[in-house]
């Protein structure tokens, strides 16, 4: 205990006596946490947006013209239990006609009271990528090898394919590149922080040499440095989080509108995110200090 408090006191003294290296290390942690703290939610937002665009891919299940109410209810139940189905929306033939009439008044004016349109279920898949497996389960392959609707009361199953593939690919590319960037940024952050720590230790290599010469063991020298890294990491992380919180309150609340546009933001909560960032920054700093010291301990 005595020794732990000694190490802590040493670490604090060292921070006080070496303002520039300490400040530099703190800055490195602060900037890194700040960038990551903005970047990670932004990536999630962008991912959510991409998903949202992709989710506009729908599968339509057209009922047979002669389908009864019971048929419709049965199919609806079955659809709701099907895998990869996120939501099912029923559009009756009357609603469908009204929709079409609004879009093509001239064409439908000629039909008079006649309604050529069937009852329709509009299905949103869990994600755009699941569209094909959803189609497969809606049209199981029979003995003939050709797919047929799972219920005789179904006239046809169709995905709005026209733009689907392109949108899926583009949003996939956006997600991929953004994810890769996040990874790159995290690796770069760790490198930069450990770089800074190595440098600030370098400026104290003479001190370490002298310590060794008067009989200090490696761990006796290393612990105060590790604790110093821990404290600086915590401080840098804390300041960064305070700034992030401030930004969240002032800026993000104004952008609320945009965030709510996206139906499934699926974002990590602010709390856990900052917790993670703080732990990461402290960990990197402490480990960086301890490990970087290794090369200066060979006296």
């Amino acid at each position, binding site marked *: 205990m*005595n020794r732990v408090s000694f190490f802590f006191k040493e670490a604090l003294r060292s921070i006080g006596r070496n303002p520039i290296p300490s400040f530099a290390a703190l800055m490195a942690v602060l900037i890194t946490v700040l960038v990551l703290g903005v970047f990670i939610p932004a990536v999630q937002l962008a991912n959510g947006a991409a998903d949202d665009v992709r989710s506009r891919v729908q599968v339509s299940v057209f009922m047979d013209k002669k389908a009864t109410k019971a048929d419709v209810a049965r199919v609806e139940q079955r659809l709701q239990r099907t895998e990869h189905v996120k939501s099912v929306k029923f559009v009756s033939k009357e609603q469908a006609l009204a929709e079409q009439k609004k879009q093509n008044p001239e064409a439908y004016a000629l039909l008079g009271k006649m309604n050529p349109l069937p009852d329709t279920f509009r299905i949103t898949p869990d994600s755009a990528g699941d569209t094909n497996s959803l189609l497969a389960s809606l049209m199981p392959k029979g003995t003939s090898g050709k797919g047929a609707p799972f219920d005789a009361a179904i006239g046809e199953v169709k995905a709005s394919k026209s733009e689907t593939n392109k949108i899926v690919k583009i949003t996939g590319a956006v997600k991929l590149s953004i994810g890769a960037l996040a990874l790159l940024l995290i690796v770069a952050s760790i490198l930069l922080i450990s770089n800074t720590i190595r440098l600030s230790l370098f400026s104290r290599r003479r001190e370490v040499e002298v310590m060794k010469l008067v*009989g200090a*063991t490696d761990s006796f020298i290393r612990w105060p440095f590790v604790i110093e890294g821990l404290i600086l990491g915590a401080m840098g992380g804390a300041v960064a989080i305070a700034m992030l919180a401030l930004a969240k309150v002032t800026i993000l609340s104004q952008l609320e509108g945009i965030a709510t546009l996206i139906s499934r933001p699926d974002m990590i909560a602010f709390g856990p995110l900052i917790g993670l960032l703080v732990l990461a920054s402290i960990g990197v700093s402490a480990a960086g200090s301890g490990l970087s010291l290794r090369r200066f301990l060979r006296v």
Partner: protein
Amino acid sequence: MIEFRGVTKAYDNTTAGVHDATFTVHRGEFLFLVGQTGAGKSTLMKLLLKEMEPDSGVIRVAGRDLSEITHKKVPYYRRNLGVVFQDFKLLPNRTVYDNVAYALQVTGASRKQIRRQVPDILRLTGLSTKLHNYPHQLSGGEQQRVSVARAFVNHPPLLLADEPTGNLDPDTTIGIMQLLYRINKAGTTVVVATHDEGMVNRMRRRVIELQGGQIVRDEVAGGYGRDSESTAEFGALMRGEPSPTPQRLRQPSEADLFDDAFAD
């Protein structure tokens, strides 16, 4: 205590260093190491401190072959050595007090022990008024005295002092040498590298002279019995004064503990 056998250490392909040095220092001895600039005195000290390894030969300290001490054990070995470095090697970000305390802290000394021993040795070396100064706020001589204090604070069985009085005025020099003498009398083996011929001559102790890395002289100065003088007598001897026999009537042990030369 120290045994060098055929020790050679040459700096990268030059003739500089130490060549085929063989000598033995017994427990409790007081040894002067002399020689011109570049003769190899500090190299010898560095070898003893295991700051570097000899190219060939064997160094034994307290019966132990230094080459057998593993990297992990080196700190524990070094704690048995008090070293006054020629360039002081103070920790720049610590006060005088903390610099001296550090040598105790590495050994895991208790806070109580530190609070007792550090002020003592600082008073003895005349640094009581500079406790809270940082090294760059000290004069050259004061830095040297901090280095001396740090080496002594542990009461190590072996004391190496490389030019411990190079930046000190004659009075302080005598004070430091009296301190060394007293420490030696208490049983510590002391090795002092120095240029101060006058001091060496007056002290009449064993002298090893190096020249270009080779031992050219190793003489146990006779005529004067070891451990025969009190510190006060010794001080007078250093000053070149006649033997201060009358002073012996005043408690000599007191004079041994506190020394006017350091009262700033």
